[in-house]
């Protein structure tokens, strides 16, 4: 199962004079976790925004199963099977945990959802399953704003699970999690990849990266400097230097 579910080619975007993304190309195959690493400001989140349509790309293209998606609005990209999490979570703060997850299953903007009672039951089952998988079932009626930090992170994941997307773009999903939570998080990812989900992960915690990813793309100043197996990339001293701030002079 390694069909490429999402592919982007030479995405570029600048802000004023600053070239935030300067020709990023990525392939996300089904069932694999690709980690995007790089120093702050490397353009990782911007790349996500370009793919999801939150930002318009200056140039480049992106495809889901071969279908071009440049220029589509974020909700259209989402409906094509992309689920995305945010660094600052953006939970539906005044809604309960259950409502947060249920909302992820209701994509129609009309006054009522299509499908009648049977479809509604199915959506509720999906929501319940997502709550079970993330361990949030006991907190179903708690308000999102009242949750503890780790619980909020898992609620963000529960929404993605409930959306039944096949492509996940996760922005620092494991940051600040204690070890036990990280292990649980890892299990969620493994269960998803076993089902064929393609996951792309922005992550600063290198332990998490090594544990969970099948491939790494190293970004710096808007470009992919290197791509490959985690061990190989992380052992490269030049990349480590960039990551930790000692930028080499103009390369030979």
């Amino acid at each position, binding site marked *: 199962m390694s069909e490429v579910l999402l592919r982007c080619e030479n995405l570029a975007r600048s802000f004023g004079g600053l070239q935030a993304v300067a020709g990023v190309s990525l392939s996300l195959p089904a069932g694999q976790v690709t980690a995007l690493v790089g120093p702050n400001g490397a353009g990782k989140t911007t790349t996500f925004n370009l793919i999801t349509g939150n930002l318009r790309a200056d140039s480049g293209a992106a495809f889901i199963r071969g279908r071009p998606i440049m220029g589509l609005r974020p*909700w259209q990209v989402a409906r094509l099977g992309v*689920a995305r999490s945010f660094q600052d979570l953006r939970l539906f703060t*005044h809604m309960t945990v259950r409502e947060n997850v249920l909302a992820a299953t209701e994509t129609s903007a*009309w006054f009522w959802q299509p499908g009648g009672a049977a479809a509604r039951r199915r959506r509720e089952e999906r929501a319940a399953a997502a709550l079970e998988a993330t361990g949030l079932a006991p907190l179903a009626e708690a308000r999102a704003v009242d949750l503890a930090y780790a619980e909020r992170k898992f609620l963000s994941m529960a*929404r993605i699970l409930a959306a039944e997307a096949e492509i996940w773009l996760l922005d620092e999903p494991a940051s600040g999690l204690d070890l036990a939570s990280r292990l649980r998080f890892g299990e969620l990812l493994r269960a998803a990849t076993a089902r064929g989900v393609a996951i792309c992960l922005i992550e600063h915690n290198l332990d998490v990266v090594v544990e969970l990813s099948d491939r790494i793309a190293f970004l710096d100043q808007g470009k992919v400097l290197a791509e490959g197996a985690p061990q190989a990339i992380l052992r490269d001293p030049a990349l480590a230097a960039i990551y930790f701030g000692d930028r080499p002079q103009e390369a030979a």
Partner: protein
Amino acid sequence: MIAYAANLATIVAIFGILAATLNFLIGFAGIFSVAHAVFFGLGAYAGAQVALLLVPDALLACLVAAAVAGGLSLALALPALRVRGEYFVAASLGLQMMAATLFAEAKPVTGGIGGLVGIPRPTLLGVEVDVLPAALSALALILVLTARLQRGAFGRSLRAIRDAESAAEALGKNVAAAKTLAVAFACAGAGLAGALFALHLSFVNVESFTMDQSVLVMAMVIIGGTGTLWGPLIGAVILLSLPSGLAFLPFIPATEVGAVQQIIYGLAMTLLMIFRPAGLVGDLAKGRSTA
């Protein structure tokens, strides 16, 4: 006495519809409109014309009015909501400010400054009826619909959009479409109230659809509290009883009563926002409005 009570009840029901629909829009969906009176007016003129030109059937007038007001609201909402919330506020402000001129100039439809007079008494299936039962049924219908929408998937979508619009969009929700539908529903309701208003007074003119009227309805929503279904209705009752109360105060010259009312509404809104944002009835169920 009975006639007075029936008249008051009808007006309360009509304004209850206005307040409930505006509450749905600004209190629940978070879409700020100061032009609710404009759609009230569009519905009133539409309903009046149906009664004058076709048949004064209450149901027909209400349906046409709702369709006209709701349909025209799309012209405002579709462009403005594609972008940011502040744009809709600005657009609605501009619309309300122009409304008096628009209504006054469109003589063939609105009767100009003089308005439309001699609207026949409403009928239902050929039988003459009072507006009161129609207004009460309409109010009940609007409250039921609003409650169902708020509790169902559409309400969840609107709340999600309010809490974290980009996250809602990232989950596949067409934010602009949802907001536009919310506006269409609320404005159709306002139009419905307008038709009832026209049939009740047998007369409509531009004076009833000015900014002052929009302020009044907003004050009803704020004072009653945005978190509950009954809040707007209670706000309507309170504020509609106010003029009679004011009439007993000797030091207010008759010409200034309107201005004094508006000052009270404005003060109430501001003070409530500072001290008790949940309004008088408050947000019993979910504590949504307090910190």
